[in-house]
Structure formats: C-alpha cells, structure tokens
C-alpha cells in the first residue's frame, strides 16, 4: 500500500510541487494550507509522514508540532529561514528532519525515505514486473529466482526505486551510490545500469533520458 503523506504548506505552488514530486514516486498526498486544517486532518486520517512549513497561517508549525507530538508521526520541517535557531528549535520539538527553501525535490524524497526507514515504515518488498526486491535482505529475485547483483548494483537499484519516475543525472547516481568522495568516471554508472537492465530484464523500465540521465518508470 502506498504511504500517505500530509503536506502543510500555505503557498499553493510549493504545495503542488511537493505533491507532484511525491505522486511521481507513488506516495499518496493530502494538501492543507493552514495549521488548523492540518490539525483536523491529523485527527481525521492516519498519515505516515507530515511535511510541515513553519510559517503557516492560524497555527504556526512549531505550535502544531507540539500538539501532534503524542501521535508519533514523523515530521519534516520546511522553512524559509536558515537561522540556526529554527533548526535547533525544530529538531528539539521532535521534527525528524528539516529542509530550507528553496529545496531540491530529489533531496526531499531522500529525506522522506530516510525518515520512513528510521520509523520502520519503508516497504519490506518492492515489485516491478517480474522483479521483486527485498531491501532488508538485500535480495533480488526475477520470476522467483534469486539474481546475483554486486553490492553497487543493488544500491543503484534501490536509488532508482526510491526516485521512481524521476530522472537522476549520472553525477547524482555517483553521489548516492558510490558516495560523495568517489572520483570515478560517470561511465561507471552507465556500465552498472547496463548490467541491471540485462540481469533483471528491465530494458523497458530503466529509460535513458537525453541530456539528463536515467529514470525508472513504473
């Protein structure tokens, strides 16, 4: 079942972008535009995560945070202020992470993923066509048969799945899979992608996006 995320953001454009980003990777979203509506929403429905702007009308993010803390729902703060005070304040109140505007959609997805995993809410099993991926066991099967993947190939597959329907550049893949300190050629990515396509028969799913990079389309 897809995860349900509450977006509390007063600017409709930003709210829509977040929604678009989350929808692409198959999260369900609910949008509210002020603090009180957020509170009502939380009472009414169960959410797996809340993305919360600090400066929202009627009830500000920090006050809202204090009220919803007992529910133990993971929260990621969005803030236009990069003041250290806000970060400290936000994290102290129990926010799991924060992002300063303007933020990068990919980065937001990565943080959502991290926070959900910390709460044990990430999926234990992902299937694409005949491929099934078990992130906990680091196991991949094709039509029920285990497939031998190198550790880097497996990591690359997970990054593709997390950012499904969004294209990442070769540099972004290098960063996320090989780490920021890796000075290898971007062709390393091409080699691994080629190998993944072949081993898992995902030629149609892993698309090459001209002048950008690769995208897993689901």
């Amino acid at each position, binding site marked *: 079942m897809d995860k349900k995320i509450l977006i509390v953001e*007063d*600017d*409709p*454009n*930003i709210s*829509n*972008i*977040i929604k*678009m*980003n989350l929808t*692409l990777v198959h999260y369900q979203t609910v949008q509210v535009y002020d603090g009180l509506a957020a509170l009502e929403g939380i009472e009414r429905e169960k959410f797996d995560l809340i993305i919360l702007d600090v*400066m929202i*009308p009627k009830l500000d993010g920090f006050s809202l945070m204090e009220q919803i803390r007992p529910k133990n729902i993971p929260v990621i703060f969005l803030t*236009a*202020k990069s003041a250290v005070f806000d970060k400290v304040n936000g994290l102290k109140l129990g926010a799991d992470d924060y992002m300063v*505007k*303007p*933020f*990068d*959609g*990919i980065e937001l997805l990565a943080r959502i993923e991290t926070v959900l995993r910390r709460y044990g809410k990430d999926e234990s099993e992902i299937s694409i066509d005949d491929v099934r991926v078990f992130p906990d066991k680091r196991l991949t099967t094709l039509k029920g048969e285990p497939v031998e993947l190198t550790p880097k190939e497996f990591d690359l597959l997970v990054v593709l799945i997390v950012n499904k*329907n*969004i*294209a*990442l550049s070769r540099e972004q893949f290098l960063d996320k899979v090989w780490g920021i300190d890796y000075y290898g050629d971007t062709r390393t990515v091409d080699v691994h992608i080629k190998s993944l396509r072949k081993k898992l028969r995902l030629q149609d799913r892993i698309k090459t*996006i001209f002048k*950008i990079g690769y*995208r897993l*389309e689901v």
Partner: protein
Amino acid sequence: MKFWLKIFTFSIIIFILVFNATSFIVIQRNHGKLLNREIDNALSQNKNIHSSVDAIVPIVLIYDSDEYEEKVLANIAKGFVGKVGDQGVYMTITNDKGKAVYNNTDFEMPIDLNESEQVKEDEIKYILRDVDKRTILFTSNLVKINQKNYTFTYIKDITSVYKEHADQYMFYLKVNIIACSTYMLLMFVVSKRLTIPIYRLNRTAKFIAAGAFAERAESGSKDEIGVLASNFNVMASVVEDKIKDLERLNREKQLFIDNFTHELKTPLTSIIGYANILRTGKINSSQLLEGLNVILSEGKRLESLSFKLMDLIQLERSEFPLKELDFCDILAEIMPALEMKAREQQLTINLHCENACLRLEKDLIKALIFNFVDNSIKASSKNQSITIRAARQGQNYVLEIEDEGGGIESEHLDRIFEPFYMTDKARSRRNNGAGLGLSICQRIASLHNADINVRSELDRGTTFIVTFKPGGTSP
C-alpha cells in the same frame, strides 16, 4: 584619593594651621604683655627705691658713718620688700667692694649677673635669669652715696608668668584637640554629604554604561552638581532615544530582511521545483502546463518584487528636488492609466480636484497615487467606484482615495505600512502583490512632509488620506 577625602584632608590641614597659628600668636602676645608689665612694675619699684634713697642721702651725709649708712639702706630695703608684701620679691644691696649690705634672697645669685652690675649711675638695667626652676627678674641700678657706689638690685620672681604661659599652651592644646576632632567630625559629614550626589551620578553612569539606558540620576539640589545631574539626565535621555531609534531601526531592518527572504524564496522554490520536475519527472501534458504556468506567474511575481524593491531602495538613497506644481495637472496626467486599469476590473473612478500649487516631485507623486489607486482596485469588487478627492483644508492640502471594498480589519491597520505586510496573502499573490506598495507610499509622503492616515470600515470601504502640510519640503 577620593574627592570627599580631599575636601576632608585639605580643610583639616588648613584649619589646623590657621587655628594653631592664631593660638600661638595670641598666647605669645598675652605673654609678652604680662612680662612687660612685670618688668615695668619692677623698674618703677626700683625707681621708687632710688628716690627713697635719694631722700635720705642728706641725712646719711650728716652722720658720715659707713655702718649707719648701711643700716639705713638695709632698712629701706626691708621696708620696700616688706611693703610690697608679695612673696617672691627680693632685694640685694651691695657696695662697691662687692659686700652685700642687704640680701634676703633664698637662692644662689647667678654668677653672670655681675656683668649687669656694671651699671652706670642713674641707670636701671634689667635681666631675666632662670634660677633652679624659677624665672627671676633682676633690676639693678647704681646709687652714689658719699663717694661710694651701691648697687641696688630689686628682684622679682616671675615664674608665675611663665607658668601661666605654659598653662595657656596646655589649655590651647586641649581646645585644639577638641576643636579639631569636632571639626573633623563635621567635615567628614559635610564632605560626605557634598559628594553623595557625585556618587549617585557615578552609579547612574555605571548603570547606563552597563546597558540600563532608562536609568536616571537624582537632581535634587540647585548647585553645580545638581545642574550637572540634570544635564546628565538630558544627555541620558538623548542617548536612550537614539539607542531606541537604532534598535527600532535595526528591528525594522531585520524584519524587512526576514520578510524579503521569505518573499524571495517562496517564488524561487516554486520556479526551481517545477523546472526540475518538468525536466526530470515522468509527467503528462496537463502537469507540464501546470508547471509552466506556475513558473511564469512566479517569475512575474519576482519581477514585480524586484521593481518595487528597487523603487524603495531608490527612495531611501536619493534626494529629490521638489518643484512648484499644480496637483490637479499631475492627477490629470495619470488618470487615463488609472481608468484603464479600473475598467479591466469593471470599476469607475470619480475625480474631484481643487487646483493648488505644491512643492512636489512629479514622478513620486504619480507613484504614490498609482499605488493607492492600485490598492483600492485590488480591494474593490465589480461595479464599485473609487473616489479621488484633492482639496485644501485650512493650511493643508489633502488627498483622499476612497474605495467601497471590503475594508481592512483593525488588527491589520497599524501594520499595513510595514514592508511585505499583506492582509490577505493569497489574494495579494494572485495580483503579484509584494506588500511593498504602501511602504513606498509612506516613504514618498515623508519626502513631501505629508502624513498618511487610513480610515476603514469592514464591508464599507477604506479611505487613505494624505495630508500635505504647508512648506512641504523634504525632512
């Protein structure tokens, strides 16, 4: 050395010097007088003796007997010493061979007294000598009887004069101690009292230096220190006001920066976010259109924000020459543009203008009117009208821009001139509003020495009133 201690010490040193010098002079003078009187007395006594002896010389001459002579002289001496009757009065009579004819002294005659015995006839000499513990006055004269010289020495014990002298010194010493201690006590109190206001002033200065700018000194007295304290207070209030101004300015600047950051980051987040997702995401055509629309409108908002901001910065920095212009001419110039803008929203604009020449900067006044009317248009609904009135009111010239819109809630009224303040964010954003229009108006008004007031009633409308005061020069 502390100030009170200086006052205290120096006044006491001066007091002791003056008091003791005076005492010394008085005592010495008294003593001198007393001594002189004693000496005069002794000398006149001696003269008396001399004249008594002179009186009996003829008789003595008749007898011409040394023995008789000496007896007579001794009798005279006895008579005098007895007659004076005082204790401590003595007499010696010696003949020219050094033999004492009469001597009733109870002490050894000092040897050096002999020098004074070389007195000439009809001459009286006196000398003071300390004998044992006494001070004794010797007066001598020479009397010639029967070709024989007799030295008459009248002696008086004047120890009491010196004792008196010493007593006086003792007395003055006591007085001195009492007077000095009393004086010290008084001076201590006085100098402390005198310096208390200084200490208070000092303490206040320290408080102020430590940041308590509201602290004030007591300025009770009318003396120099009191004047200093009140001047100090005047200074402190000026400093406090300045600091408050600076703090307020700083707060405003910080608020401006915070708001500006927010206003800048929100559209940027949308633009960057949509651009990125359009570039990388697997999206359909309606999502593409949505994204492009947002990028366009947010870009326009940023453009409008940057223009407004440039206006505001320009207004802060530049000096504008004001010229004598007719207000109605300026209004007439921008009316077509305003009416066009109003027609788009199906609004009408009514204009009533009374001609008057004011010192104005044309472009700024246009911007002011434009911003106000733009504001009114945004607040109005279809088929309503906006009224612009400009007329003299007494000394002032007053511009009113009235709309029939929704009005402004009183909680917002105080803040609408703050940069980036918007009563309805969503609506302002739709109209590309940045929340800077009224800040710009206020700045323009202050450059023209004009005040802005707002009258607003919910659901009835809002009126902005700009009052140009006479002598409208920039402050």
